[in-house]
C-alpha cells in the first residue's frame, strides 16, 4: 500500500441544531493514499458534500480527528494547510475582467509574500498546471466567457498550481456534458497516477466512477459508509444495497444500471455479439427478462442487424428486419 496522505479517526460528520449534534455519519475510519483516485458515491442528501467540507475544514467535525500528512489538521495553521490540501468546490465564481491565468495563479498565493508577487518558479508551476489540464491556449481568455467544462478545468488547474499532496473535489463532473465528464475524469485519473497525488472526488456518475476509481466510498443516510475497490463492491452486492430502487438496479454482468422489467416474462435470446447485447437491451426496456442459457420458447435469434427471428411456443416463426419492428410487434402481443 502506498503512503497514507489523509486519514480520519472516529470521525463524525453532520451539523449542530441548537447545539445538539445531528449526525450524518459516525465512527468513520477513512484513508487516502498516494497516487490513488477515490470517489465518493451516494444519492442526494447522503452527506457527500458535508464529508468533503469536513475533510477540507469548512465544516467542523462533530467528533474525531482528521490527520493530514501525519498530523491532526486542527493543529496546523491555515498557511500550512494550504500547502497540504487543495479543493475544487461547487461555489459559483464571478470575478469581472478575470482571466484564466489570474484564477489559476491564485493557486500560488499560499507561497507568495504579503504583496503576492510571483517569481519565476511560481510562473513555471502555473504554466505546468495549465498544460496538465490542457487549457494552456486559453490562458488569456476571460473566465466568464468559458463553458462549464472549461471552467471546471480552470479550477482543477488552480488546485494543481497549489501543489498539494491531496486534492479534494466536490462533484467536479456535475452539469457537464458527457464528453466533458469523461475528460475531467481522465484528467483526475492521470493526475493521481502521474503525480502521485491523492485525489478524492464526489460524483453522481457511478458507472464512470466504477471504471476509474481505485477506491469507492459509498454513503447514504442511515446506512453505514462502505469502502472498497469498485469490483469488490459490485460483487458483494454492496452497490445494489446502496442504489437499488423499485425501478432500477445495478447489473453485475454489464456494469450498468438497468431498469427493472415490469411484466417479468421470460424470453430466450441467442446470436452473436454485439447484436445480442443490443437485442437484450431493447427487450428488457419493454419488460422482458432475457436469458441466454438454455433453449425454449418464446425465443429470439438475431444473426445480423436485419436478420431477426422470433419463435413462439405455438411453433410459429416470424422474421423481422430491425429491432424496432420486433419491439413494436411484441408490444402489441403482450
Amino acid at each position: 500500500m502506498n503512503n497514507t496522505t489523509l486519514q480520519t479517526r472516529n470521525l463524525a460528520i453532520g451539523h449542530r441544531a441548537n447545539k445538539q449534534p445531528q449526525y450524518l455519519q459516525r465512527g468513520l475510519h477513512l484513508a487516502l493514499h498516494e497516487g490513488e483516485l477515490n470517489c465518493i458515491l451516494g444519492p442526494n442528501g447522503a452527506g457527500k458534500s458535508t464529508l468533503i467540507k469536513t475533510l477540507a475544514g469548512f465544516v467542523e467535525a462533530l467528533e474525531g480527528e482528521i490527520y493530514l500528512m501525519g498530523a491532526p489538521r486542527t493543529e496546523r495553521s491555515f498557511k500550512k494547510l494550504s500547502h497540504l490540501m487543495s479543493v475544487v468546490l461547487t461555489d459559483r465564481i464571478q470575478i469581472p475582467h478575470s482571466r484564466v491565468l489570474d484564477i489559476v495563479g491564485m493557486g500560488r498565493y499560499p507561497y507568495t509574500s504579503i504583496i503576492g508577487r510571483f517569481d519565476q518558479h511560481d510562473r513555471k508551476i502555473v504554466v505546468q498546471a495549465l498544460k496538465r489540464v490542457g487549457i494552456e491556449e486559453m490562458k488569456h481568455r476571460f473566465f466568464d466567457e468559458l463553458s462549464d467544462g472549461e471552467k471546471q478545468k480552470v479550477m482543477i488547474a488552480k488546485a494543481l498550481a497549489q501543489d498539494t499532496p491531496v486534492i479534494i473535489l466536490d462533484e467536479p463532473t456535475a452539469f457537464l456534458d458527457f464528453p466533458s465528464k469523461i475528460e475531467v475524469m481522465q484528467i483526475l485519473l492521470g493526475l493521481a497516477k502521474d503525480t502521485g497525488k491523492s485525489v478524492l472526488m464526489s460524483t453522481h456518475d457511478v458507472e464512470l466512477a466504477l471504471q476509474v476509481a481505485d477506491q469507492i466510498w459509498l454513503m447514504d443516510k442511515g446506512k453505514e459508509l462502505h469502502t472498497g475497490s469498485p469490483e469488490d463492491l459490485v460483487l458483494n452486492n454492496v452497490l445494489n444495497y446502496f442504489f437499488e430502487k423499485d425501478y432500477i438496479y445495478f447489473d453485475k454482468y454489464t456494469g450498468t444500471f438497468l431498469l427493472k422489467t415490469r411484466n417479468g416474462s421470460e424470453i430466450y435470446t441467442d446470436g452473436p455479439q454485439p447484436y445480442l447485447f443490443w437485442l437484450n437491451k431493447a427487450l428488457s426496456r419493454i419488460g422482458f427478462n432475457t436469458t441466454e442459457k438454455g433453449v425454449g420458447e418464446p425465443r429470439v435469434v438475431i444473426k445480423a442487424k436485419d436478420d431477426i427471428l422470433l419463435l413462439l411456443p405455438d411453433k410459429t416463426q416470424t422474421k423481422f428486419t430491425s429491432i424496432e419492428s420486433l419491439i413494436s410487434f411484441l408490444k402489441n402481443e403482450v
Partner: protein
Amino acid sequence: MWMAILMVGVVFLFLLNLTTGSVSIPFQGVGKILLGWETGMSTWENIVIKSRLPQAITALIAGSALAVSGLQMQTLFRNPLAGPAVLGISSGASLGVALVLLIVSSISGIAMGASGALGDVGVTIAAFLGALGVLALIMLAARYTSSNTVLLIIGIMIGYASSSLVGILKFYSTAADLKSYVIWGLGSFSNLTLPELPFFAVTLVLLMLVSLFLIKPMNLYMLGENYAQNLGANVKMIRVLMILASGFLVAITTAFTGPIAFLGLAVPHITRNLLMSSDNRLLLPGVILTGAAVALLCNFIARLPGFEGALPINSVTSIIGAPIVIWVILKQKGGV
C-alpha cells in the same frame, strides 16, 4: 498606462480646484502661493490657503477613502451594489448629528447650527460617535453570524431604523434646526478648517495604508470564503479587518464632510472598467487615484462660477454616480 493618466488627472484637477471659484486666480498665482512666494495679492493668499487648499485636500482624501471603503465592501459581500453605506455606518453618523442638532438644541435652547465653531466640532463628534455606534453593532452582529448576507441585511436594516429615527426627530424640530441638519446632510468638502486637516489626513491615509496589507486576502476573498480559507487566508480575521478598515474610513470621512453618496459605490466600478481588472494589487491603488479624481471633479463642478454655494456636493456625486451604477448593471454579463 491608465495609472499614469489617473495620476496626471488628479494633479490637474487638484490645481483646477485651487484656481476656480467665484474669484478666479490664474495658475501662476496659485503656483506662487503654494511655493510661498510673494504675489502681492493678500486676498488671493487668503482664499487659496485658508479656503481652497483645505477643501481640495479634503476632497482628495475623502474621495480616496470612500472609494477604498466601497471596494472593500464590494469585495466582502461579493456584490457589485455594495458601497460604504451598506453597513449603515453613514446612517449612524446622520443619526448622531440629528440627535445633536435637533434634540440638544431644543433642550438647551441654543441652535447648534448657529453656534459657530463650537457647534461645528460638536457636529463632527456627534457624527463620529453615531458612526462608531453602528460599527460596534455591526461588529457584534458579525460575532453572531458567519453569513455575510445576514450581515448585509442587518446593515441595511440599521440604516432604515436610523433614517426613521431621524424622521421622527425632524418632525418635532424647529425650522432653523431642520435647516442646519439638511445642510449637513448635503455634504461638503469645505467644513474642515486648516487645524483639523492634519488629523483628518493622517488617520485616513494610515487606514488606507493598512488596507494595502489586505490586498492579497481581498483577491482570495473574491473566490468565496471557502476557497480563500483553503488558499491560506484566515477568513474570520480578514472579515473583521475589512469591516473595521472600511467602517473607520467611512466614519471619519462622514464625520468631517457629511454623507457623500454614490462615490464609494461608483468609483470601484469605474476603476475596474478603466483598468479591465479585478486584481486588487492594481485595483486598490487605482481606486485611490480614481476616488480622488472623481471627488475633485465633483467639487470643481459644484464650485463652478454661477453655481457657487448653490450646488451641494452630495447632489453632484449622485448625479454622476447614478448613471454609472445603471451602466454597470446593464453592462454586467449574466446579471447581478
